[in-house]
Every structure is written in C-alpha cells, then in structure tokens.
C-alpha cells in the first residue's frame, strides 16, 4: 500500500481515535492537578524551582490553551472528520441493505430456529412489525421484516455532533469578547472599546428572613453609538441579550458618595466604588483613595478593621491619601466624620451597593450547543434504537426456518429471538 494511503487509513481509523482519546484524558487529568494561570514565582514557591521550570516549559500553567492540547484536539477533529466522511458511503449502503430481503435471504449470518409453525406470531413477539411477503431465489415463500434502521446512524450523528461542538467551542474561544462594568445606580460607563454605554438604573438586593441573599437584580440601559438604546432587568441566572452582547449580574460591593469642600465651599462630589480613587479637582496631585467599606464596623485593638454583619449598622470607610504619588495618610472614617487636609475637607456618605456586570459576546455559543444536542441525539440513537431484522423461509414440510440478526443486541437479542421462535414452534 502506498505510504499516503497508509497514513490516510491510520488518521481516519478508530485505533487512532482511541489513542487520541487516551491522550486527551491523560492531558486533562494532568492539567487538572496543576493550578492554572500562575507565574514562575508562584509555582516555585508551591513546588520547587525545577518543577516550576518544567511546568512553564510544558505550558502546564495554561494547559488548555497550550500548543499540544490544541494539537491533540486538532487531530481529533481531523480523525472525526475523515472517519465521518469515509464511512458515509458504507453507512448509506448498509442502511439500504438492512431493509433488503434479498440480501438477508442470500446471507448466512444471524441466529436460526427451525420448525416454526407461525412465523408471523414470532415476528410480533419480537416487535418486528408486519413482515413483507417475498420469495427465495429458488422460489420458496419467505417473510422479511426490519426495524430501527435509523439506529445505524447513531455513532455517525454522535461524531458529527462532537465535531460541531469542538468547532463551536474553539471559534468562540478565538473570537469572544468579554468586558466588566461596575457601578452604583445612577452611573453610566463605557463598555470597553465597543462604543456602547451601560447605565445602571437601579440595583436591588433581596434578602431572606435570615439575612442571606436571595437574589441580586439590576435594571440596565445600554445605548449604542447611534443613540439607540435598549433596557433590561438582569439577575443572577437570568442574563439579558442586548445589541448582540449578553449581560450578567455577576457580583456586588459597596459604593459611597465622596464630597470634597475647599474653605467650606463645596468643590466636587462623586460616587466611588470601594477600590476606586478621586483626584481633587483643583489639585490633581492630591488623590483620595477609597480602599474599603465596612457596613457594621468593629475595631478590636491591634487587629485589621472588620465588619460584624452585612447590615448598615455602623458604616465606616477606609481611605488613604496620596500627594505626588506618596502616601501621606491612611485611616478609617466614620459616617459624618470629616477628613481635613490643609484647606480641604472630605466626607464619605450614602453608602450603597454597587453591581458588577459582566458582558460577553460569543457568536458561537449556539453552534457549541447545537453540537452538544446532536451528540446527545446520536448517543440516544446508538444506544436505544437498536436495528434488528428477521426473516423466515418456508420449508418443504410447511414449517418455517426463522432467522434474525441484531449486531448491537448480541447475546440479549439471540436470547429473545430463540424465546420468541421457541414459543411458536410447538403450536400447530
């Protein structure tokens, strides 16, 4: 056999499929043992310098996007594609042959029972449906029935589904865009570089009687570059699709209104989420950083600030102040307290939850879902729609020789067949 043909045969073979599946299983299990996405220092501290170097050299720090992982999957797709293409003609031929009485009568395969009095009743016992009347080549009466031929397609449908699934997933990974926007009600922010603006109209936290969170809900409005806008209510497990992007209520934190006054006169006011900072309007080198918020502040000597509950019983704000990039102070400010820096006074007030909204655009999610559903359908066909056929030939004594075949049914089909044939043997 020429080398090219040999390679083609191997690449489209089931043996190669098994090797690839084994490689994929091994790759996934090894990768799951290594915490993903860390850097050299992290691995070196966790394991050893040598192991860390090995992890990075093998790409195990980001195994599921590494060259070798993609290579295995690429070969798997090639394997599935070639196998699906090359098996298609044979599959069509087999589906045709499965319903062909002549082919069955000519063949020698299958289980066999002789001396059957009433073959039609045996067919009924096997739930083979109504047999067709036909004749052997030498002119004897014959009956034939086949069922569940569509089941022959199970494996093929499953394989095509897997191909679509991998295609949808890979295309999605390669092209998807993700953004995150957070803010308190009343704020509007740009969604990355898309040109769209996300306004948070309202944000609610529903609590149960025991103070655990039942649901987070945000009302949002998205406005496009052309001024058109669409609104939606989103909550955890209930995202909304607007302008081809999907919006997810992801998490929450605290925001507060920060007011700066100069010489007693209001200078500026802004809503800051914990973690954000503000530059003083007429003195940009002076920066107020809102580090953290404690809704129910407790301070025990020497320990870090903490909150006793999630309730707004004793709000406190941790801030730090920078001037010319140098920290000049850090402390906790209670509600109503004033921070004084030279001529400026700063207050924190009106604490409110802000929402973190995740935005995702993946045009291939539908393809992956379709692939998953087709895979499932293929498995259903392969496992639960088992093709079978049965045929009978009348012998000289008027009794019938019954034969049947079901490749998938194996020993179970043979047993059911012999039981059905046996039951129709003794009657006359």
């Amino acid at each position, binding site marked *: 056999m020429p080398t090219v043909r040999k390679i083609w045969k191997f690449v489209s073979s089931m043996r190669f499929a*098994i090797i690839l599946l084994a490689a994929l*299983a091994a790759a996934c299990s090894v*990768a*799951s043992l290594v915490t993903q996405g860390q850097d050299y220092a992290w691995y070196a501290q966790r394991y050893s310098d040598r192991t860390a170097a090995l992890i990075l050299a093998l790409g195990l720090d980001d195994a599921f996007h590494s060259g070798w992982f993609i290579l295995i999957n690429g070969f798997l797709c090639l394997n599935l594609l070639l196998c699906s293409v090359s098996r298609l003609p044979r599959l069509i031929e087999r589906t045709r042959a499965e319903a062909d009485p002549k082919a069955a009568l000519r063949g020698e395969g299958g289980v066999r029972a002789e001396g059957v009095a009433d073959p039609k009743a045996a067919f009924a016992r096997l739930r083979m449906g109504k047999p067709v009347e036909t004749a052997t080549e030498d002119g004897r009466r014959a009956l034939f029935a086949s069922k569940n031929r569509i089941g022959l397609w199970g494996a093929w449908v499953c394989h095509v589904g897997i191909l679509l699934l991998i295609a949808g997933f890979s295309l999605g990974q390669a092209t998807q865009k993700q953004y995150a926007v957070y803010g308190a009600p009343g704020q509007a922010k740009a969604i990355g570089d898309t040109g769209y603006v996300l306004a948070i109209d309202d944000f609610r936290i529903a609590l149960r009687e025991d103070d655990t969170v039942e649901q987070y809900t945000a009302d949002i409005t998205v406005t496009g570059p052309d001024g058109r806008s669409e609104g939606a209510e989103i909550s*955890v497990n209930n995202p909304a699709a607007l302008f081809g992007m999907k919006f997810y209520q992801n998490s929450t934190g605290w925001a507060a209104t920060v007011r700066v006054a100069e010489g007693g006169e209001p200078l500026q006011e802004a809503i800051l989420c914990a973690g954000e900072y503000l530059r003083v309007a007429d003195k940009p080198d002076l920066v107020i950083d809102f580090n953290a918020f404690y809704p129910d502040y407790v301070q025990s000597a020497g320990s870090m600030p903490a909150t006793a509950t999630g309730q707004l019983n004793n709000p406190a704000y941790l801030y730090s102040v920078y001037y010319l990039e140098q920290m000049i102070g850090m402390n906790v400010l209670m509600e109503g307290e004033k921070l004084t820096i030279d001529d400026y006074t700063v207050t924190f007030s009106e604490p409110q939850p802000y929402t973190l909204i995740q935005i995702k655009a993946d045009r291939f999610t539908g393809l992956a*879902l379709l692939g998953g559903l087709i895979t499932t359908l293929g*498995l259903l066909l392969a*496992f*639960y729609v088992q093709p079978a056929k049965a045929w009978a030939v009348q012998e000289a004594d008027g009794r019938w020789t019954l034969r049947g075949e079901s490749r998938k049914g194996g020993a179970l089909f043979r047993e059911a067949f012999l039981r059905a044939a046996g039951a129709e043997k003794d009657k006359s």
Partner: protein
Amino acid sequence: MLQAENTLFTIVMLIYFAAMILYFAFIAARREGVAKAAVALQAAGFLLHTAALVCRGIGAGRLPLTNQYEFATSFAWGLCLVSLAFIFRYKFTVLGAFAAPVVFLIIGYAAMQSKEVRELMPALRSNWLGFHVSTAIIAYGAFGVSFVLSVIFLLRDRMKASGFLDQHIPDREKLDVISYRSVSLGLLFLTFTIVTGAIWAERAWGSYWSWDPKETWSLVTWIVYAAYLHLRIRRGWEGRAAAVFAAVGFLCVMFTYIGVNTFLPGVHSYA
C-alpha cells in the same frame, strides 16, 4: 418533615444493611427463597428512601440535591434504582448481592455528612441545576452498576464452573452486553449532565465551560467511557479488557465526585 426524613434515613440504612446480609446468605446457602426476600427488602428500602428524599425536598422547599449529604444519599438512591432495574430486567439477582455493599457504603458516607439545610446562594437557584444534578444521579447509579458488573465478570472468570454459577450468573457474552447496557445508560445521562451543567454555567457565570477541575474530570470520565465503547467493538478487547476499563471508568466517577472536592480547587467546591 426534616425530622421524618431523619428517621426514615436511619430506617433505610438498616434495611439496606439487612438486604445486604440476606444477599450474602443467598450466596452462601444458595436458596432461591432467600434471594427473593433480599430483592423484596431492597425494593422496600428503596421506596422508603424515595419517601425520605421527598420529605427532605418538602422540608427544605427545594430539590434535595445541593450539598454533599443530599448528593450522597441521592447517589445511593440512584444506584439502588438502576441496580433494581437491571435485576428485574435481566433476572439477575446476584447483581444485587454485589451492588448492596456499594449502596451501603455510599449511604454510610452520606450518614457522615452534615445534614444541615442551608439556604442557596443565588447562582444555585436554577432549574438547570436541578436537571444537572438529577441526571448526574442516574449516570452515577448506572456507572456504579457497570462497576459491579465488571467485578462479577472478572470474578466469574476465576471461578470454577458450577451449577449455581451457570444458573445465576449469565455467561461471559451476556454479561458483556449487560455491562454495555449499563455503561451506555450512564454515558447518555452523563452527557445530559454535562450539557445541562454547561447551560446552567452559561446562564449563571457567563461561561459554559471554564476547565474548572470538576468539569475537567467529568470530561475525563466521559472520554474514558467513550474509549470503552470503542475498545469493546475491537476484536480481542471485548470481555476482560472492557471489564477492566469499565472499572477504571468508575474510579474516575468516584474521583470526580469525591476526589475533586477534596484535592483540587474550583467553583464546584461548595457542592
């Protein structure tokens, strides 16, 4: 309701234990009557177990499928369901004798978990999650049965032929097909589990597959059983090799179930 569940759970555990002893007695004494009693007892235990799960569901006001205790007791229930189905469908009582200790082990594991009913965080309040976990229970139950069948297959190979063996344990070929049936049931339901899990993750977290260790290990399990299906149709690999493979598959199932939560980090670790 939760009190009733507690009582029922204890009774169910005792019944499963008694059924296991009866099954052993059947094998030791080789008496048909004992076998019938064992199956009847297991079926009774199963009905009470169902009642216990219903009580917990009503008591907690949701599907009882969200923490380690609930999943463990449901797993035992699923294994009991699938093994009873196979016992009746294939008239294969000895299967019960090998399944009973596994059911008892799993329900014993459940008994060691905290039974506290906790409110669900918002991400867990989803119908998709209900489908996700209930299909997982059937998948795990079916894989448990395929594991038991593999053990029977491998033991049968080592035992000398005897009347009892031939009467109560199907021949190699038939065992192989029954094992194939259990793996295919499991794989179909594992596929449902993964697909519904992906749909839920997409709605809850915005990403339907993120290579979290539990996801990765369910994929490994899926691949191992897919490999089993392919090996089985290759000449020379059916029978013994396939049985060993199906047993390895179940080790993957158990690792996905218990090992991942214990040894590896991930979003599923609250489950």
